[in-house]
């Protein structure tokens, strides 16, 4: 039940290939995120919500999962997580533009409502924290069938205030289910700062009250997050039950394209944000370890951009949903 304030600094022993893969995943998430914001500013994507600043957390957790075996019940900031789990930039660009081929929802939901049955990414709606309970149910099904799969579900620190969050952690603890509750704590729920959201410094202060371990980690440190996630996954796979992971992140962008954080955040605070960019941190670490060179970093960036460009071209040309289909799939048909 011990709450570790922060995981011990993770060694770079994953091997250079994996580390570079993880780096690329973060870059891809970031660049795709930026592209969607551009599409929004151009008036082509009606809505954008950004995961910038959360990439290290999501990639760290994503790389602890077994792809197409474990499950995720994500939330709207989890762009990098769903990319790691197997979804593509094209999948998300189709969603941003509301195209028929959008695998998340066929253009029915707002972008960032990630879903892919093929990749075990559970469909989500917009209400905050409802997904927490779904993850518990998924874990229940795994346990019932005797599978050693693990499910991870994520929300923000604001989401922890909802009753569903409480009910989910409690249920998972009582039944020792293989669920990892990830809280991506960026200090704000739209405009509401953490101090108006809870009277404690760490969401993990709640773990002991449910009877599960809580680990608080620097969410800008991809390897620290990864290590914590690997341990939680191993624990869950061994049948020892759920873990609460709180990753402290920064929200580099406003809450969404409908928000302007300059209205409620101090200029100093905003200026300071960039120095916490997890991408920069990982790049510097990898360069210091001799795994990444500036040239290689530029190549990764170019490669990701090319992938996104190709995807955007396809998405641009993809057809809008056929109006006739709007009435389909309320119930199973045929």
């Amino acid at each position, binding site marked *: 039940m011990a709450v570790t304030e922060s995981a011990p600094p993770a060694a770079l022993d994953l091997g250079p290939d994996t580390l570079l893969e993880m780096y690329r995943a973060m870059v891809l998430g970031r660049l795709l995120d930026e592209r969607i914001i551009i599409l929004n500013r151009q008036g082509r994507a009606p809505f954008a919500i950004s995961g910038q600043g959360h990439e290290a957390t999501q990639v760290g957790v994503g790389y602890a999962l077994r792809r197409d075996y474990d499950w995720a019940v994500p939330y709207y900031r989890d762009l990098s997580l769903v990319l790691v789990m197997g979804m593509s930039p094209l999948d998300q660009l189709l969603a941003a533009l509301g195209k028929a081929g959008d695998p998340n*929802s066929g253009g029915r939901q707002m972008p960032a409502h990630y879903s892919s049955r093929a990749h075990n990414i559970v469909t989500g709606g917009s*209400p905050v924290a409802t997904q927490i*309970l779904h993850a518990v*149910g998924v874990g229940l*099904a795994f346990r019932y069938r005797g599978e050693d799969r693990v499910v991870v579900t994520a929300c923000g620190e604001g989401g922890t205030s909802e009753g569903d969050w409480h009910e*989910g952690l409690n*249920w998972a603890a009582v039944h020792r289910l293989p669920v990892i509750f990830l809280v991506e704590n960026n200090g704000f729920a739209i405009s509401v700062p953490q101090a108006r959201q809870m009277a404690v410094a760490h969401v993990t202060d709640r773990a002991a009250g449910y009877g599960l371990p809580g680990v608080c980690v620097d969410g800008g440190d991809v390897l620290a997050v990864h290590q914590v996630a690997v341990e939680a996954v191993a624990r869950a796979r061994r049948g020892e039950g759920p873990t609460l992971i709180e990753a402290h992140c920064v929200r580099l962008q406003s809450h969404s394209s409908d928000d302007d954080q300059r209205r409620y955040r101090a200029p100093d605070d905003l200026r300071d944000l960039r120095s916490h960019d997890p991408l920069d941190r990982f790049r510097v670490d990898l360069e210091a370890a001799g795994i990444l060179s500036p040239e290689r970093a530029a190549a990764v960036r170019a490669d990701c951009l090319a992938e996104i460009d190709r995807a955007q071209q396809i998405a641009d040309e993809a057809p809008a949903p056929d109006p006739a289909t709007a009435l389909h799939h309320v119930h199973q048909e045929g």
Partner: protein
Amino acid sequence: MVEAVRTALAEEMRRDDRIIVMGEDVGLKGGVFGATQGLHQEFGDLRVIDSPLAEASIVGVAIGAALAGLRPVAEIQFQDFIPPAMDQILSEAAKIRYRSNNDWSCPLVIRAPCGGGVHVHGALYHSQSLEALFAHVPGLKVVLPSTPGDAKGLLTAALRDPDPVCFFEHKALYRAFKGEVPAGEHVVPIGRARVARPGRDLVCFTYGATVHESLRAAERLGLEGIEVEVVDLRTVRPLDRECIVETARRIGKVLVAHEANLAGGVGAEVAAIVAEECFESLDGPVMRLGGPEIPAIPFAESLAEVYYLGADRIEAGLRRLAAY
């Protein structure tokens, strides 16, 4: 009727091991009305789960299990205690197939006892009939059986349905029928009404416990040669539109009766369908009977009587309509 529910659950659980049951006190105690009695003994801890006291989690966890391939039955102890789970039902279960463009589905049965009556004494919070709140929601099916046979057959259909079904069992019916459960496989399709009594002069559309009050009233009028057809809607979403329209056109005088509050109730939808589709065949105004404009059935018998829609009030309504 409680026996019918229990039997349907047990038989289907034997047939399909994806079915699990969860809710408050459904295990050792077998449910506060005994609807899950014996299941825990037969199917064990993993399939019959005494949940924490938290309705959103009962439904929300069931949704997750359904997404992952099980077929959960979420029991809510009383329908009055569904509102904490409303978000999970309305915003999640009902929309999962649609919002994922058919990629995901949510086969889930939400069972709850509903309704009251003069002798149920459940007062404001153990007596409500809230089906209209669910009947308004695309993506849900809403079923209210009135007989043991239908309870078994419709619950079996619900347990085999690929989408979420709300299954509401009227408490007054639980012990009202004994030993009338059809043996063996018995499936009644969701969405079809049933003629509980044929007639030609008036038709009464109704469901749940009010079917029996309506039959009693119809019988009394029958003695005087006024033949009332009583139609048990059985499913209030989707309504059996075809049956409603055909019957209303054929008979021409329509009463809609239910225990739930009248204003904005299921009866309004039935009446509106009739008003729109049967205009030229109507021989009188579409009449509705339902609960008065108070929150639910009060505790004291003298007050409860004011709420309850019994055979007498239905008979009076039918007579007014007959005289029109």
